[in-house]
């Protein structure tokens, strides 16, 4: 008898597990599914992505007077009669298979109108396949692997510039230094910056970064002394750091997540390395944990980014948003949180334009979407999907990257040093070294 009741109990629980997620209460809201790495090694970044997206949804849904961008005035989506945006978060665990299953759940069970996410390019790949099959729009604000927009998907839009773009920015920056375009810095002889030494983590994203860097280096005539991949989540990076310093290259380029970025900086400090330029490919190099942990040791490091709090100096909207964000999370707005912010913003505009939640209509709206730069918090020319690089489809053409430099830490803020015309501060050159 006991087993029977046990079995019964089990069956009841199981059916509850299956049925319960379907019970949601009809309200006037539009559900957007957000897949992010909320646990696992990338959880720290996942948290700031989530904070950024939540802030954007809040700004759309409530009135925030005086920010200066349209969505702050909306109180819901006007095109849908003031419907509120509801973000349904789901943890990808950084696992592509898990990400795909969560995408399925969000699409079919949560009945989301569309998806947003998923940061790691590998997860974005599988999750967007589910969206493509189901015919549901997937807006990707935060993955930068060039492959993603080259698949010809019809239900996939990427807002952020991708790696090719950022790498072009990097070489524009280096060439600009040589040409003396950087405000306040004398023209640097190319021989002082050559050769380059590149260390990337051994992931989809790292591997793509290395390929792009090698491609552009060849195109622009920069020599590479060392270019290697290292196992991510390493127990120790001393020998890799030694390999960099041992190469005697004056320019170090990295593509690393937080934990490895910290280890590299610590190891280079330990070895008293004296590079002229230390450049990070976003990710770990802009995470709050990075500068919180390293304090003054980050000064002089440059990183590619899409947003910096100092943008407020040139873009007052950004400053106001940053204030609200800082109040909520305790940190400055950064490249990660800003990108998921803009992802939600793109969704809001698309929904407003479509005036419907029908996927086909949304698809059309997204394809035709044009948000001018002044309505964004980003220093971009706007959002418009097209094909900026050969092979791209539904890739934002009007985006752009910036390069920031940590200055005056632990009290300072990252300053923009590229594009040169947007620079908020003079570039500290050469890299000051570690004390």
């Amino acid at each position: 008898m006991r087993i029977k009741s046990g079995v019964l109990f089990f069956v009841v629980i199981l059916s509850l597990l299956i049925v319960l997620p379907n019970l949601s209460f009809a309200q006037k809201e539009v559900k957007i599914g957000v897949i992010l790495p909320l646990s696992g090694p990338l959880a720290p970044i996942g948290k700031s992505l989530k904070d950024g997206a939540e802030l954007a949804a809040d700004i759309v849904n409530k009135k925030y007077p005086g920010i200066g961008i349209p969505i702050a005035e909306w109180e819901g989506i006007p095109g849908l009669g003031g419907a509120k945006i509801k973000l349904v978060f789901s943890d990808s665990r950084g696992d592509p298979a898990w990400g795909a299953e969560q995408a399925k759940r969000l699409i079919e069970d949560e009945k989301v109108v569309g998806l947003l996410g998923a940061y790691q390019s590998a997860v974005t790949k599988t999750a967007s396949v589910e969206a493509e099959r189901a015919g549901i729009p997937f807006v990707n604000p935060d993955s930068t692997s060039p492959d993603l927009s080259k698949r010809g998907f019809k239900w996939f839009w990427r807002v952020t510039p991708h790696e090719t773009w950022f790498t072009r920015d990097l070489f524009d920056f280096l060439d600009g230094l040589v040409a003396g375009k950087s405000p306040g810095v004398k023209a640097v002889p190319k021989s002082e910056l050559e050769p380059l030494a590149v260390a990337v983590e051994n992931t989809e994203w790292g591997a793509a970064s290395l390929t792009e860097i090698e491609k552009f280096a060849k195109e622009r005539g920069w020599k590479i002394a060392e270019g290697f991949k290292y196992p991510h989540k390493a127990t120790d990076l001393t020998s890799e750091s030694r390999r960099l310093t041992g190469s005697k290259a004056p320019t170090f380029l990295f593509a690393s997540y937080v934990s490895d970025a910290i280890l590299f900086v610590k190891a280079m400090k330990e070895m008293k390395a004296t590079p002229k330029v230390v450049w990070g490919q976003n990710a770990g190099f802009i995470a709050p944990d990075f500068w919180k942990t390293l304090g003054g040791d980050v000064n002089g490091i440059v990183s590619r980014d899409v947003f910096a709090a100092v943008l407020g100096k040139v873009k007052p909207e950004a400053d106001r948003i940053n204030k609200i964000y800082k109040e909520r999370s305790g940190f400055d707005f950064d490249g990660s949180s800003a990108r998921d912010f803009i992802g939600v913003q793109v969704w809001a505009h698309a929904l407003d334009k479509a005036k419907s939640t029908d996927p086909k209509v949304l698809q059309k709206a997204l394809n035709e979407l044009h948000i001018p730069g002044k309505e964004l918090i980003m220093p971009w020319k706007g959002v418009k999907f097209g094909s900026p690089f050969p092979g791209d489809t539904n890739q934002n053409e009007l985006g752009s990257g910036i390069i920031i430099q940590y200055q005056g830490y632990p009290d300072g803020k990252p300053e923009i040093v590229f594009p040169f015309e947007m620079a908020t501060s003079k570039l500290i050159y050469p890299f000051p070294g570690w004390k």
Partner: protein
Amino acid sequence: MVRLRQLLIDIFSFRDRPRFERIGFLIFILIVLIFPWMVTSAYGRAVMIKFLLFALFGLGWNLIGGYGGQVDLGQAKNVGFGAYATALMIVWWKVPFWITVIPGIVIAAAESFVVAYPMFRLKGHYFAIATLCVALVWKELFIFWDWTGGARGVELPIRSGVDFVYMQFNSPIYYHYFILFLFLMQFFFVNWFRKSKLGYEVQAVRDNEDAAASLGINVYRTKVINYTIAGGLGALGGSFMAVYYLYIDPDAVMPLDLSILIAMTVMVGGAGSIWGPIIGAAILIPLDMYLGAWLGAQKRLGIDFMIYAMIMMVIAAKEPKGIWGIIERVRKKRTR
């Protein structure tokens, strides 16, 4: 003819099992068959598919870990071989799915055979850690090599509609019956295996190596062959993963976590019983997926894993023989 008939009986018959097991199995098959029509939730269906996938993995691992009694913590490498064989052959040469399955199984079996020879010089924990190391080396190699796509993985071209050549479908219902078919194939293979000469030899070696040798069993060879077969079976599920997720990379198809989860489903369900992997997967997979979906994106992280871990520890401490152990005990008490 007689032999063929006998073989078919051996494959499909459960006459040697008690009646309640046969009835239980029938009910189980019935539920699985009608499941997609009863449950419309996509996540529910995805959970079901993942459950069948892990039950399939568990059946394969059960050969070495349950019937063979050797703790193998490297089954993920075989899953990876299967997944990569399928994915790469489809991408490179557009080979139909069903043809790619065979090289996947052959490669996994061949690799298992080669590493088994040195590995079975080891016993117990040394063996377990060696299997773990071998799997990790393969994973690093697959990331390292360019021809496998390295860390960028392999993306399969998406096909629209229902495609039985490349086994791609736009509805989970097809995938459900597809994995169910693979599962049943493996299930009946294991059903045959446990009653075959090799199956009995494997169990004899597990229970007592000296006694097994005294009955004319070549202990070393038996272990190697068993490990080889188990390796081959692991690849089948890998092939499915490739066409189901349509994107694979080494972190997704051959991580340590996968090896451990496979072994764990069998352990929780009850190692060495054909029902063990099914019961284990039926408990762990829905538990993990629903806990993850409900509690995974909360303000405070980790509750889902903590609950999961508690359950694992309680089972390990209180019922080392798994859920099947409880059922057996209750039954023995009743018959007594």
